């Protein structure tokens, strides 16, 4: 055997390579079955970046369909609720250039929730059917109301209302969700500044 290989070095190399190739091929084949990935993982990653308002402003019926569209080459700037930060995250994930958001500037960044003026509601249930996250409760001919905690502010319920009793109100700042403002940068005084930043002049 050894003698045969030493006598035929070329043949030995070919056989050796073939054996190796078949071994690795078998390994790869097994791995591709054993560790098969269901679905497109990039879609999941994109979907996790989207704000899940399910508002349809991107022209797709929900966030996941838009995630699929982005995976298939759709623009990354169609999500006004996500704002600039979502677009940038998407650009980074997809390896594309950031692009300006495709929306009116005033719509961006203001968190809103739906509010039903309850004495005007006629109980038609149209908004309930429109709400993608079941955040409106009510029944036929009974007054409806929005669960503000679950509302994503997608404003899909505004259009179907026959008596126009739904308003989109900006989320109020309370002591619970207040946060420190950002300093204005160089050449500005920070108004709530205290001694600590006065440079030890006291």
């Amino acid at each position, binding site marked *: 055997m050894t003698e045969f290989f030493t006598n035929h070095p070329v043949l030995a190399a070919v056989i050796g390579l073939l054996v190796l190739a078949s071994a690795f091929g078998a390994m790869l084949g097994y791995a591709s079955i054993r560790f098969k990935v269901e679905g497109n993982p990039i879609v999941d990653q994109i*979907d996790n970046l*989207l*704000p*899940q*308002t*399910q508002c349809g402003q991107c022209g797709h019926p*929900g*966030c996941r369909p838009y995630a699929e569209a982005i995976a298939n080459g759709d623009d990354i700037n169609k999500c006004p609720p996500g704002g600039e*930060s979502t677009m940038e995250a998407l650009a980074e994930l997809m390896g594309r250039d950031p692009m300006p958001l495709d929306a009116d500037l005033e719509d961006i960044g203001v968190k809103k929730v739906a509010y039903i*003026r309850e*004495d*005007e509601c*006629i*109980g*038609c249930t149209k908004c309930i059917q429109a709400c*993608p*996250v*079941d*955040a409106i409760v009510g029944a036929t*001919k009974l007054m409806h109301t929005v669960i503000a905690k*679950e509302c*994503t502010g997608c404003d899909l319920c505004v259009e179907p209302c*026959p*008596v126009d009793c739904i308003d989109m109100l900006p989320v109020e*700042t*309370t*002591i619970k*969700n*207040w*946060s*420190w*403002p*950002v*300093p*204005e*940068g*160089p*050449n*500005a*005084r*920070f108004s*709530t*500044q*205290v*001694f*600590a*930043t*006065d*440079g*030890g*002049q*006291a």
Partner: protein
Amino acid sequence: MRKTWDFHGGIHPEENKHQSTQFPIVDAPLPNKVILPLQQHIGAPAEPVVLVGEKVKTGQLIAKADGFISANIHASISGTVVAIEDHAIPHASGMTDECIIIESDGQDEWVELEPLADWESASVDQLLNKIASAGIVGMGGAGFPTAVKARTRERHSIDTLVINAAECEPYITSDDMAMRTYPEQVITGAKILCQLVDPSSCLIGIEDNKPEAIKALQDAAKGTHIEVVVIPTKYPSGGEKQLIQILTGREVPSGGLPADIGVVCQNVGTTIAIYKAITQGEPLISRVTTLTGNAFNRRQNFTVRLGTPINELLELGDFDQKAASRLLMGGPMMGFSLQGDELPVVKTTNCLLAPTHDEFPDPELENPCIRCGMCEQACPAELLPQQLHWFAKAQEFEKAQLFNLFDCIECGACAFVCPSHIPLVQYYRYAKAEIRREDEEAKKAERAKIRFEQRQARLEREEAEKAAKRKARMAASAKPKTAPAATAASATSSAPALDEAEQKKLKIQRAAAAVALKKADKALAEGKEANADNLAEPEQAQQQAQQKLNDIDSKLGTAKPSASSAAAPANSQVSEEREKALKQAKIAAAASKAAIKKAEKALATAQEAGDEAEIKAKEADLATAKANADKAADKLKALQSAPAPSATATAPTTDNSAALAEQQKAEHEKALKQAKIAAAASKAAIKKAEKALVTAQEAGDEADIKAKEEAVATAKANAEKAADKLKALQDTPPSAAPSAAAGNAAALAQQTEQQKAEQEKALKQAKIAAAASKAAIKKAEKALTAAQESGDASEIQNCEQALTTAKGKAEAAANKLADLQQQANATEAKPAADTNAKTSSSAPSEEDTAAKGKALKQAKIILAATRTALKKAEKALAEAEQSGDADAISEQQQTLARCQKKFADAEQKMAELTGDEQGNNTVSKGNEADTASV
């Protein structure tokens, strides 16, 4: 001397502590009112347990801890709760939060206090409960509930208890003065904590700039295992993690807790509060607060009741408003500016600082970072402040997190040393808030996603269920046609009987007879197929079998009614029996129909064969079958048209007319259903007959045609009859009987309700009819366009005619609908009027408004509907204009005008209604706006 360690960085700002240590602690005068925020601690806000107007005593619980991380709040003066409302609180945002406001009665009357006399032998649980119920939180500044912190032993092994007496921040002297004044309380409080935590060593860390306090504590701690450790003065040695590092040399891991390295740290003010709670039973209602800064003419420490408005303290300290540059709560390094002075002192208020402009000039302009690296030298948490600053500025929060932004203790050392006067801490606070907000949003997004997916799944499931139901219904409606005999057999057998043995016997006989009949039929058929001459015998046999079967059937039929009449005094039973009888009759009718069919088929084969005698015989057969069918139909009719005579008979005996009415209604409904079925069946019969007529015409057999035409006519007449009956049933609601019980008010109410229900039903039907007629119009229109396209004149005419009739029908339906709606309104108004008359003076207006509200709602709905119609019409007009068809345009314009008129009418009605309803201004305003927009 115990070995101490050092921590990285730190600064040495001017201490400025001597100003407020010249005089001993004084009790501040009782405030006139106190404002107690429900959240003075980290965690959930407390839940109020008093009501506005309630009298409270000092030390009484007024708000209970809500949840695990929360703290009780007690009244700090005696008096009356005047409000529980949003009030400005000391917070960097200057915003309001819910507070309990108590007005003093000047008595300062205390509740009875319950001290734990021998705390040394008390259990850990007793001590913890006492501390928790006293509402003690960390007094150093963060305000973490102490009882929760003291519980860490349950999950961590603790070897060192650290009492934080460093008080490193400039100006503040409240802890210093408290230690000088009450050293025994500090030591006893520390002992209590030792009993709770059970550490191997207890260290009091104190900076060397407080010699008096050090001496007092050392004297008090003599003979105990508590060690007073003097550490060099450096800011921020009073930071929890820094002090632990100085005293033990251990570093708290990033993102971890001191308990992770076996240390628990409590503030010295907290130990005093614990002492008071355990040995005196006194809850946390006061604290020592420093008033300092040169804008105060009286710089001193005061024992202040919690909730005291700051303006009362300013008066006490002889505050000079003009000299002050600003007013801070807390020290100069970590405090925050206060906006307004109607703010209360809270559990964490250790200092009120009012510096002059000389002490605290306005902040310098922020300059660009020069990357000098001094901030890194100063940072006690060994972070890279400069990098964090860049990341925060560029909103690269992820990177900031990678650089351990959350280990920043916001001590301000970096900003203190920054030569560019960059407000670094503000940048970090901003970045932290943004990261927390993003986390919150991510969580919300996750929840929204789950809800969306669940909704999607639910919709799909509902759709599938609907489809399955539809399929099942279709299958169910197909079944009786294909197997009437089978259902007949099963129905007869399933009928429960009173005379069971008899019925069973009869049933068995019937089954046998049915088998015999089948056999005879088969024999006959075979005979025919063989074209045998002598068919009389099998025929006879078949007839005999049929006769026998009929006999048994009739017996079975009579057996049941007799049984039921004998043993059915109860109403419900009678109706049940009747239902059964009805079912049987129906089955019989179906069976007879099947027989007719068979006979017809046989006749047809006979005609094909051309045997005249045979044909005649078959015709006779057919006639008998038809007669049978007629009989069955009659019986069915009789049963259906006699709506429960037994029920009416028993009615007088049962006083309960309501039950009767209900029963009658059920009967009526049943009858209605049957009539509907009959109508549908007759329609099907017409169709069949027509089809037969067509085939006959094609075949060209005149006699046949005539016969078929007749059949069609009779079928049509039948259908008409069925329709009439249906109409009659629909028109006459079964409300005749209860007139006997007219005197009974309850029955009357029930009756009206019933009528209303009927009316509603009728309304629904009318609506359906209207919708159907609309659909018909659409169809007709479609047909018309198709005809126009094909260009067939006569067809067009036909279609046009159909369209006009459909439109007429639709109009009639709409009229009827309107009438019904009016009627419904009238009846709705009537009961209200009745009750009004009865109750005379009590509450007529209320009911009136309820009725009006309903009317208003209806008007709104109508308005909405007309608005939609208007929109549609406008759209149609636009389309017509685009297509350029003049006729269409004029037509659409007409419809639009009509819609507008309707809309205007609806609006007027609405306006009238809203005008009636005083006080509901918003709605009428909305209407005006609507009108304006139109």
